[in-house]
Structures are given as structure tokens and as C-alpha cells.
């Protein structure tokens, strides 16, 4: 006998609620950690406005830590979702914006934008977006022929595009006499400390509609897993859905890159973990990746801030240290 499973909506609400609680908890932890010693109690009191006397703590929390934690959550959400979308569209469990070189492409665009003296938004974001779309088209063209979806061709194209992007980035950096050089290098490795509340707000306004759009297309993404032709016979407009998702994802990725550089492998870790726990249904996975991906990067940022005795390491270093071994593990597993 087939049990009546809980209807999807209920499941979706429960999972989203639980993951939201985890995200909020981790964000609170992120806010209370930092070089200025403060107890969790003090921090909570400050956040909820019951402890307004300590003006310095108040400033640190609202001007420095809160924007940073919020930025981490947004960037983690966008990158996780980016990974999920690429894995579904390209039917390749190893696809991810960073590995495919999309992030690298937007970084080139972003550096050009920075060197030309554009402001972060909209100038740098737009040059980054141009770079990401250009690399996306390049990768799809390189790995296409009859089968866009060929696993090895796609990954190899991505690795090569990535290497090429890295070279171009190094070229641009070595050509410039700019005093902001150190900034660029630090930013490149994934820097989450740049945000002030206004910039984080702009990023949120850019990203949130993309999240909604991807969620709206999550059922067609399920059908796409069965192959383009079958999805088409089930009423999916393949071209429209694919192009919309690719553009939305590149847009999200380039927005995050122009704000905090290259944070790699986030789109690999969370989608896989969440798929393992919640199954392959994208209507669950899309919200789960937004919340879980946010949690993941906030945790990575806490590690980046607390591991070194002095100063901090870029968050991208932490995510790569976790993500790259996982990539190798997954590669071995899918190759069997």
C-alpha cells in the first residue's frame, strides 16, 4: 500500500522554517564573534534594542558585523543556488559557477570595471555580468557539438576557461600601477568585509527577485533532469526555461563577484549536502539552498575571522579548502 506522503507544501514549510532557524542562529553567532570581546547576551540585548547604552558595541554591530553577516548569507545563498541550477541544467553533478569559470569571467569583468573607476553598482556589476555571460557562452560553445551535456567536455572546458581567466586577471593586476592593488588581490580571494548596509541592501534587491524566479522554475528543473526531449513532451518550454535560468544565475553570480570576489565551491557543497538530506526535488532544494547556502557561508566567514590569531583570512580560502576535496571525492564517485 502506498502511504499518503505529507503534501509537498507542508514539507516545504517545515524544512524552510527549520533551515531559517539555523540561519538566524548562525547569523547571531556571526554577529557576536569578533576582535572586540562581547558576550552573546550583550549582543542580543543590543540587537533587540534593550542595551542601547554601549554606543561602541552598538556601532560595531550595526555598522560592521551585521552588514558583513548579511552579505555572507546573501552571497552564500546566491552561489549555492547557482550551483544547483547549473547541476540541473547541465545534468552534471560537478557543475558549479566557480568550477565552470563563470565566476572567473565575472571577476575579469569586475576588475576591468574597477580599474576604469566605476562604482560598485551599477558599473562594476554590469561589467562583471558581461564577463560572466561571455564565459558562459564560451563554455557552452566549446563543450557543445551534438551534446552540450557531455560531462568531461564541459568540466574540461570549464577548467581551461578558469585557467585562462586567472591568467587574464594576473595580467590585468600586473599591468596596473594602482595603489588599490592589495585590495584587489584580497577581494579576489573572496572578501566579505567590504559591505556597508546600503551596499548590502542593493545586493539584496538584486538577488531576491532572482531567488523567486528560480523557485518559480523549480518544477521544470525537475522535469529537465529526465532529459530535454521528455521534459518537452511534458509541456516545458525548454529554450525559454534554460535561457532564463542561465541568465538569472549568471546575473546572481556576477553580482556576488562584484561585491566580494571569488568565493569558490559554495555551489558544490550545499546542493550536494541538501540533496542527500532532502532528496532531489527542486521545489524543496531551491529554498533549502538559499537558506542552507547562506548558513554555510556565514559559518565559513566565522571560521575565516576566528581561525587566525591576528587579522583574518579571506572566506574564499576556507570555502576552497572544504570544497576542493569534496569535488575530488564526487569526481571519483561519479566516475565509477
Amino acid at each position, binding site marked *: 500500500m*502506498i502511504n499518503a506522503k505529507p503534501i509537498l507544501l507542508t514539507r516545504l514549510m517545515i524544512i524552510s522554517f527549520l533551515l531559517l532557524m539555523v540561519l538566524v542562529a548562525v547569523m547571531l553567532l556571526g554577529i557576536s564573534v569578533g576582535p572586540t570581546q562581547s558576550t552573546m547576551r550583550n549582543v542580543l540585548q543590543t540587537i533587540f534594542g534593550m542595551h542601547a547604552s554601549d554606543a561602541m558595541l552598538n556601532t560595531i554591530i550595526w555598522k560592521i558585523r551585521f552588514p558583513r553577516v548579511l552579505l555572507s548569507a546573501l552571497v552564500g545563498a546566491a552561489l549555492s543556488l547557482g550551483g544547483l541550477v547549473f547541476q540541473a541544467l547541465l545534468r552534471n553533478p560537478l557543475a558549479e559557477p566557480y568550477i565552470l569559470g563563470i565566476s572567473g569571467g565575472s571577476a575579469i569583468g569586475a576588475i576591468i570595471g574597477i580599474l576604469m573607476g566605476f562604482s560598485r553598482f551599477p558599473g562594476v556589476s554590469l561589467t562583471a555580468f558581461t564577463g560572466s555571460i561571455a564565459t558562459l557562452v564560451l563554455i557552452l560553445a566549446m563543450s557543445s557539438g551534438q551534446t552540450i551535456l557531455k560531462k568531461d567536455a564541459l568540466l574540461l572546458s570549464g577548467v581551461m576557461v578558469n585557467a585562462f581567466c586567472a591568467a587574464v586577471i594576473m595580467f590585468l593586476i600586473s599591468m596596473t600601477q594602482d595603489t588599490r592593488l592589495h585590495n584587489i588581490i584580497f577581494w579576489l580571494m573572496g572578501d566579505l568585509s567590504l559591505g556597508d548596509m546600503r551596499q548590502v541592501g542593493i545586493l539584496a534587491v538584486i538577488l531576491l527577485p532572482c531567488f523567486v524566479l528560480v523557485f518559480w522554475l523549480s518544477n521544470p528543473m525537475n522535469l529537465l533532469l529526465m532529459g530535454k526531449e521528455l521534459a518537452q513532451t511534458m509541456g*516545458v518550454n525548454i529554450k525559454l526555461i534554460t535561457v532564463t535560468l542561465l541568465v538569472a544565475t549568471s546575473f546572481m553570480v556576477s553580482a556576488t563577484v562584484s561585491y566580494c570576489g571569488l568565493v569558490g565551491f559554495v555551489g558544490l557543497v550545499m546542493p550536494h549536502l541538501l540533496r542527500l538530506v532532502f532528496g532531489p526535488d527542486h521545489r524543496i532544494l531551491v529554498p533549502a539552498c538559499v537558506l542552507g547556502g547562506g548558513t554555510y557561508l556565514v559559518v565559513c566567514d566565522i571560521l575565516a575571522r576566528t581561525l587566525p590569531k591576528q587579522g583574518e583570512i579571506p572566506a574564499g580560502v576556507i570555502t576552497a579548502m572544504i570544497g576542493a576535496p569534496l569535488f575530488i571525492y564526487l569526481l571519483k564517485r561519479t566516475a565509477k
Partner: protein
Amino acid sequence: MNTAIDVKNLSHSFGEHLVLKNISFQVPTKDFFIVIGPNGSGKTTLMKALSGILKPQAGRLEILNRPIDRYQRKALARTIAFVPQMLSADFPFTVFEMVLMGRSPYLGILGLEEEEDMEIARQAIAFTGMENLAHRKLDQLSGGEQQRVFIARAICQEPDVILLDEPTASLDLAYQVRIMDLMERLKNEKGITVVMVSHDVNLAAMYADHLLLIHDGQVLCQGLPDEVLTYKTLEEAYGCTLLVDESPLGKFPRVTLVPKKYMIKE
């Protein structure tokens, strides 16, 4: 008699290569219609045209007396379901989740299923006899079981016509008969028109109401099984020596391959 599929002068080419040449035929409603023909004769291309995957370059194609390009995507999906030749189960959906996806062309803007959709999926699973596999993961099933899941998904789509591209190709003997029986029940009990591409002329002879034999992108012969499956037509299509007699099971033809060493020398 109503017409489920009406094809007139259909042609299609990939580059220089003309795959379908001026094909015309009709499939009556509630018919078990089987398309046979040698490899590369254009069977799969024909199925892709019928399912709307491929837009034929010339000719007319009507589904239930309405041109196929006049259907909205989802409306077409509610009319015709397709079971392709080979499917890969990349991501571990359960059987139930997979079958439930057949409801997609009926879902609202949020793409969430209602209780009614779940009930239809349960019935499709019961119809194909997979109740005890319902919560198993797809990638843990055998080829024959997976094939039944994909058929259940097509049933769950509640179409008027089901198209199948060689559903028995890689299955063992018992499963071939099971799938064919299932399709016959689908026709008799649910009144669904079944259109199938098959390699197995003997299975086709036993189950089909009507047969279409295509060769080199053209219709070689169409009609009742004993009209189509004759020594002459089959030899012309397949280019090998065959023995056609009456099956010991009933009044339909039986086709036997005749290898060279058994041929009578003149």
C-alpha cells in the same frame, strides 16, 4: 471511427539526409498501433514528430483532428504522453515522485500537487502493479521495472494517446510480454490510443490492431497485421530471408528468420 492521429505527406530531413519522405497514415482512436521497420528507417524521427519534440519541415500532422502546432505546450502534454527509448535516472527520485511528475502539465503557477494529483499517481502505480516499489529509489530498480515507472508516469499524465519508442528493446522475454499486456490493458480499460515503435515483428503481430511498416523513410505498407507481415513486404524492408506462416496461437502471422545455412539450395 474517430481519428487519433492523422499524418499527411510528412517529410523531414537532417541536413542533406532526408529521413522522412512523404509519410501518410492514420491512427484510429482506441487503437493499438505499432510502427515497424529496420534500423535507420526513420521510426524514431517519426515518433519525435508525433510527440511534438521535432517540428517536421513539410506536411500536415493532426492530433484528435487538430493541427499539432495549434496546441499550447501544456495542452499537447495533456493529450499525448511520450515514453522515450532510453532514460537515465541521474538523480535519485523515488518511483512515486517520478510518476507524480506526470501531473506537471496540470499544475498551477506554483507547480505544487494537490491531493487529487497524488491519487491519480497512486492509481497509475497500481495500474502498472508497482505498489510495493512505490517508495524505492529509481536507480535501485532493474531495467524492466524502470520501464514500467516511465510508463506509469505517462499514464499519470492522463493522455488520450501514448507514444512509446521501443519500450521492450532491452528487456527479457517475460518483461516484453508484461509490457505488451500492460499496453493492451491500457487500451481496453482506459481507452487510450497506443502508438508504439517496435523491433519485434512477432510481438507486433500478436498485439497490434494495425501495423505501419516503414523503410528508408517511406511507408512501405500499412494495415492489419496479416496484410503487412507478408514474406514479400518484410523481405523488401529488411533485406533478409524470412519464413512467414500462421502462428500456432491463433490467426496471426508468425515470422521466422531463415539463416543462410538453413536455406534450400536450388
